[in-house]
């Protein structure tokens, strides 16, 4: 008799995997921001070069290490701020629009500071 809800929840569980570690989440955002052609707001607000954007941000944030974990901003806050970058697609190969990047910078000054930029 409990078959129906069990089937439903099992099907929903099958749609997602385990939680990604903080380092992977951070690296995902860095990759999206630095995907060329890089937006002008990235170079100006985060003070990075287009050619060395990814290495610079990974170094600044420390999320190149597997042991990285979010403190300020928190993981939840970071994930909320990441949402505009997924509007063009969930794949990391899809570049976010510069308007979505600007929205991230505007709404999340903590994230800008996290990446070593000026809010």
């Amino acid at each position: 008799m409990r078959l129906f809800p069990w089937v439903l929840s099992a099907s929903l569980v099958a749609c997602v995997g385990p939680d990604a570690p903080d380092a992977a989440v951070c690296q995902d955002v860095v990759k999206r921001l630095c995907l060329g052609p890089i937006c002008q707001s990235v170079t100006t607000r985060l003070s990075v070069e287009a050619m060395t954007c990814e290495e610079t941000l990974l170094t600044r944030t420390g999320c190149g290490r597997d042991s990285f974990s979010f403190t300020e901003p928190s993981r939840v806050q970071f994930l909320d701020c990441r949402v505009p970058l997924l509007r063009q697609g969930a794949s990391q190969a899809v570049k976010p629009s510069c308007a979505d990047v600007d929205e991230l910078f505007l709404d999340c000054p903590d994230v800008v500071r996290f990446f070593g930029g000026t809010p």
Partner: protein
Amino acid sequence: MTRLTLCLALAATGCMPIENTVRTERGPLLRTFTRPQLLPGALHAELRVRWPELDVQLSERDVCRETTIEEYAEERITERSAPAAGPALSTGLATTLGAGVLFGLSFVMSPAPDTTLIDTAGRYGPSLRQQFQGYTFLSLGIGIPALIVGAIAFLRTGEDVEQRRVEQETSQKEAPCNARPVTGTVQAKGPKGVSVPLPVKDGVGLLSAVTLPGPVDELVLGDRPVELDEAGLLTLGAFSACVSLEVEGARAPESLSDGALVSRAERLSNCKQVRGDAVLAPLEAAEAELKKRRESGGPGAFAPGASVTSFEDAVSAYAPRLVFKAGSADLSRLDTPEQLEGQAVFMQGVVSYGLAQNIGVLQLGGREVFVFIPQKRAWGGDFANGSRVEAVAVMAGWQTVGEKTLPVARLVWLRAAY
């Protein structure tokens, strides 16, 4: 949740139509028997005339009915079928088996999550194993309900046989029975409001013609009519004819109009059945007068004004005020010719057929009228059947010749019409 699931399952089975086909097969004859039945009684009277009295034997009789019944064995077979049960079962089996295959294959697939995707909640994409197992559950979600629905529908199919006995009436006989005498006061009723009490004790009553103001044609006890057989009806009719003649008194046939004479002759003939030779003389006198009038055209043929010499003279002398021809409003007056006796009329129509030398039939629109043709007539000419004629005549009531009873008129003048 359990109730919801149960409701969903029941609703799903409700979508599966079950077709019922009922057929009846008659088996062998089991027995033949008769069933007696007693129907409520009716009043019955037997009549006998001992002039001037009418003996009434009144009884109440039931009707005993015997019905012959043949009893058969009969099978009522109800076949239930669900045309969609097969497809539902096969769909359920296929998807459930498919789910099993997917579930088995899932263990061959990689359990590693898809690290190329991180969703908005920060989770990796599902592994291939998870995806296969998800498809497994989806297939089960389709297959198991289909299996349940198909199985329930399949279980509901089948055949019910109801055996029973049926009766068929083959014949019926009815006969009066349980005759018992009746005591009470019967009302002897007749036309013109005649109603005379007739006391009946132990089934015997006596109705005297002396006390009757007129003929009677019906006997009633309370609100129950008394049934008479054919002989009883004839006896009552004859008795009533005698009563009518007694009330009317002695009349010379020559003094009667044609209609009254015919009526009297008929009543005398009827009365003769119970009084015999007592009315033989007046009957013969009436019949002789009738014969005389048929041969001569009746006394009206020689009435004042009859000795006319032309059609115009006839119109002038008789001054007919009624016109009988096709479309004439006066034609409806022919329903009561006894009220027109002695009145002069103008007729225009077609000679239908001559019944005798001195009598004929004229067709006037949709009506027919007998016409007496006097032996001594002033007009000439031969009027064959179908010829159009017009006439001046005097109405004389009803006339019966053979089985035909029609209004009758005595011709004063007849000529061809154009």
